[in-house]
């Protein structure tokens, strides 16, 4: 059999023993570099291993995010975990299964073809042999590199993959300690920080005496250039010191922001790195039937339920860090670079945190903890951010402004399409993006600034993610203005540019349908030849009772949108039903998705639902607010998110896609949900609102205009 191309993770980590280890307690440990954030990846990877090894799921233990024993798979991002890490585990397990059966065949003096595996037991022509993985494990050389030549099981024989199994991590989370926050090593010291307000700001004064008075207990103040930490054996003492500190510190070179900078409109005209993608040069002839639309999305927050937290200890020259970051191997490298330690002198292990949906403060807290640990060797440091610190200093999802310039043919269909995008960078992950661990900028020799860049198009782009319509458009091009100096640190947040871009495309398509005097579903189908997307549009329209859609302008609306995430991951079509009075209430959402072979259907549905709720929240409510000093929305009152009383009823389903390869699902619903709401509001009001969030003020303004 010919070797198939190996997934990137196997190219980077070819040794079998990086992935699989047979343990004496008759379990098999499968290691992945991807980490659990509540998305269920550990369970899905366990299912894939159990399937390929023909083991019961309870014999599989998944080790996730461990620099000592696990593979380096960079960050857990972009809905790639099941495709890439799961694909790697499948090939590794198939190969190990083949090796184990070869050894067993030698022992039993039979043909390999006479052997089968049932529940981990090796059978010879259906009869028990007393052999299993553990009896032959010692004879399999797992230091060998994976070849990718072993046959994987046919999908038709699957009995674990494709079936819903409960998440392995949930029972602990429902009954007690479960998160990095909940680990208290003996004699742990609690730490909090005082944050440098911005890169380049220098600490002019710090009233340590007043801070000690406020702390009311044993307190150590650690200062290293412009990095300050408060350390105490008593958590409430460290917390009180940090809460008092910002008012007792003065900074030089603190930047001042203008109110206009919090709006997406500010981005236009700022210095930018401009790129042209697609069908350039644009046609020289003047457009005949030009339609233009501009939409915007403001800065939005990850707003994790837990403030970032990390544990670190430095002893005998070795640093051990426990973190809820999205990539432990990258974290180790980044810490080594800042601390001047060799990479081998650092161990990074993942422990659970609250859902992060992208690049939040988790990695930064790990450096904070490490800096304190280096100054107090031999002790465990537990460093936790304050709530206002999490809101104020996590990287935020970039504001975006998207303008579509579309020239129509004589039938009102797009003939030539230019998407113009203004956005700051979507990836400032240290090591793979244009950013650093936050505290490194406060140290004596901060690393030099990196000119911002976005993920390349072959990885789905950043601001340009989903900028290419799924529809049949003869000529499409993108002009991408990567804004160089945004007022806040920006980085990856679920879907990157997909939400604003899909919102723009699907809003325009609805307007074009109206212009052509056609139903939005019929219009879409007339320019959509992609069969998988067509099927979803037809299905979701049927589920939502689209044909009974009422008249526009009656205060109730139904809107539809469709996209394929990154133009290469899962497809999702969404219909939203809204009621608009002074505010928008999303009453119900229907979603049909095609993700190819779905490993854990209920877990994947949970992801579709979560993406829908988060997108409703972003679309209706969320905006990071700025004041002169930086992010001003630093609690849940100034940064409200969707509540139980506001969450729509949902009906989500996957079409049977088992004949197609697995596609990532984590982010596929966010763009279509936002756009379906926008279209539903347009249907309800008879007027379109182009700027997110769709607040009461914007609705009133739009109604006044009509």
């Amino acid at each position, binding site marked *: 059999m010919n070797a198939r191309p190996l997934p990137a993770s196997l190219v980077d980590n070819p040794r079998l023993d990086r992935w699989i280890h047979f343990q004496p307690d008759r379990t098999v440990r499968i290691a992945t570099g991807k980490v659990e954030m509540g998305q269920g990846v550990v369970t899905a990877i366990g299912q894939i291993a159990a399937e390929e090894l023909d083991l019961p799921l309870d014999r599989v233990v998944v080790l996730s995010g461990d620099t000592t024993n696990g593979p380096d798979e960079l960050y857990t991002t972009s809905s790639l975990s099941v495709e890439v890490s799961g694909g790697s585990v499948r090939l590794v397990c198939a190969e190990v299964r083949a090796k184990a059966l070869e050894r067993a065949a030698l022992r039993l003096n039979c043909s390999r073809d006479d052997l089968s595996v049932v529940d981990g037991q090796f059978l010879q022509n259906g009869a028990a042999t007393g052999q299993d993985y553990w009896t032959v494990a010692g004879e399999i050389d797992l230091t060998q590199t994976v070849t990718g030549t072993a046959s994987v099981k046919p999908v038709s024989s699957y009995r674990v993959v494709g079936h819903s199994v409960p998440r392995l991590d949930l029972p602990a989370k429902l009954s007690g300690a479960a998160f990095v926050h909940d680990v208290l090593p003996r004699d742990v010291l609690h730490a909090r920080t005082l944050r440098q307000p911005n890169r380049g700001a220098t600490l002019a004064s710090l009233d340590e005496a007043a801070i000690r008075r406020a702390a009311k207990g044993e307190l150590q103040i650690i200062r290293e250039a412009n990095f300050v930490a408060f350390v105490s054996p008593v958590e409430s003492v460290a917390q009180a010191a940090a809460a008092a500190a910002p008012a007792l510190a003065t900074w030089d070179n603190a930047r001042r922001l203008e109110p206009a900078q919090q709006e997406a409109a500010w981005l236009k005209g700022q210095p930018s790195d401009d790129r042209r993608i697609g069908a350039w040069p644009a046609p020289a002839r003047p457009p005949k039937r030009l339609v233009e639309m501009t939409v915007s999305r403001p800065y939005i927050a990850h707003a994790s339920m837990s403030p970032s937290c990390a544990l670190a200890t430095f002893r005998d020259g070795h640093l051990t860090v426990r973190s809820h970051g999205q990539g432990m191997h990258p974290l180790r490298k980044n810490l080594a670079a800042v601390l001047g330690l060799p990479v081998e002198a650092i161990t990074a292990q993942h422990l659970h945190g609250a859902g992060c949906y992208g690049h939040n403060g988790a990695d930064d807290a790990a450096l904070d903890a490490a800096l304190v640990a280096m100054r107090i060797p031999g002790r465990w440091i537990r460093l936790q951010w304050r709530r206002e610190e999490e809101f104020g200093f996590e990287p935020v999802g970039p504001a975006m402004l998207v303008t579509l310039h579309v020239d129509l043919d004589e039938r009102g269909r797009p003939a030539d399409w230019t998407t113009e995008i203004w956005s700051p960078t979507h990836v400032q992950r240290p090591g793979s993006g244009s950013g650093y661990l936050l505290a490194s900028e406060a140290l004596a020799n901060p690393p030099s600034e990196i000119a911002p860049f976005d993920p390349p198009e072959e990885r789905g782009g950043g601001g340009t993610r989903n900028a290419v319509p799924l529809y049949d458009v003869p000529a499409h091009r993108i002009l991408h203005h990567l804004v160089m100096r945004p007022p806040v640190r920006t980085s990856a947040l679920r879907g990157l540019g997909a939400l604003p871009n899909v919102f723009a495309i699907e809003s325009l398509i609805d307007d074009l349908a109206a212009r052509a005097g056609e139903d939005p579903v019929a219009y879409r189908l007339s320019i959509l030849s992609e069969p998988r997307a067509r099927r979803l549009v037809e299905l979701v329209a049927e589920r939502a009772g689209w044909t009974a859609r009422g008249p526009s302008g009656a205060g109730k609306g139904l809107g539809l949108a469709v996209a394929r995430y990154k133009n290469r991951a899962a497809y999702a079509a969404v219909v939203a039903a809204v009621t608009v009075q002074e505010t928008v209430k999303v009453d119900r959402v229907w979603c049909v998705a095609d993700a190819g072979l779905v490993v854990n259907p209920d877990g994947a549905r949970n992801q579709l639902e979560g993406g829908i709720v988060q997108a409703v929240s972003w679309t209706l409510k969320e905006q990071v607010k700025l004041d002169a000093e930086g992010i001003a929305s630093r609690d849940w009152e100034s940064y409200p998110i969707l509540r*139980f009383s506001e969450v729509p009823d949902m009906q989500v389903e996957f079409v049977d896609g088992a004949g197609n390869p697995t596609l990532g699902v984590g982010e596929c619903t966010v763009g279509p949900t936002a756009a379906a709401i926008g279209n539903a509001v347009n249907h309800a009001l008879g007027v379109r609102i182009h700027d997110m969030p769709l607040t009461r003020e914007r609705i009133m303004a739009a109604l006044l205009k009509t």
Partner: protein
Amino acid sequence: MPIAFTVNGEPKRVEAAETATLLDVLRNHLGLMGTRYGCGLEQCGSCMVLVDGQPTYACTREVGTVAERKITTIEGLGTPAKPHALQQAFLDEQAGQCGYCLSGIVMSAKALLDRNPTPSRGDIVAALDKHLCRCGAHQRILRAVERAAATLRDGGRA
């Protein structure tokens, strides 16, 4: 002066300032880590516990005010091996993603079901509306509470 109260049915005495928060005492004095810190501002509900059966934000409640009272935390409900009907219902519905908000939500649901064994969907929404969930597991959570109510009515373990 030690402060005495009951936690999950066991009498406890802790040496803590009366102004210490109940959350701090539960986690750092008593090692009960299932009650989570989210905001410290009574805005998210991650820290919800029951004080004499009433849902209470542990992040701001001063421990001096709970002397001689009965505290219930998530650890007082059940364990993975022997879950309470609410915990089992959350597992049956897979009602959660990251899980950080869940222990507080389960405690508010417990208080609701103790006082109203047959809540409507609207009653459950009203009882949980002070809780935030960022992953978007709300509908599953509502179904889980309905399921637990049904189990308890049928004589399941309370």
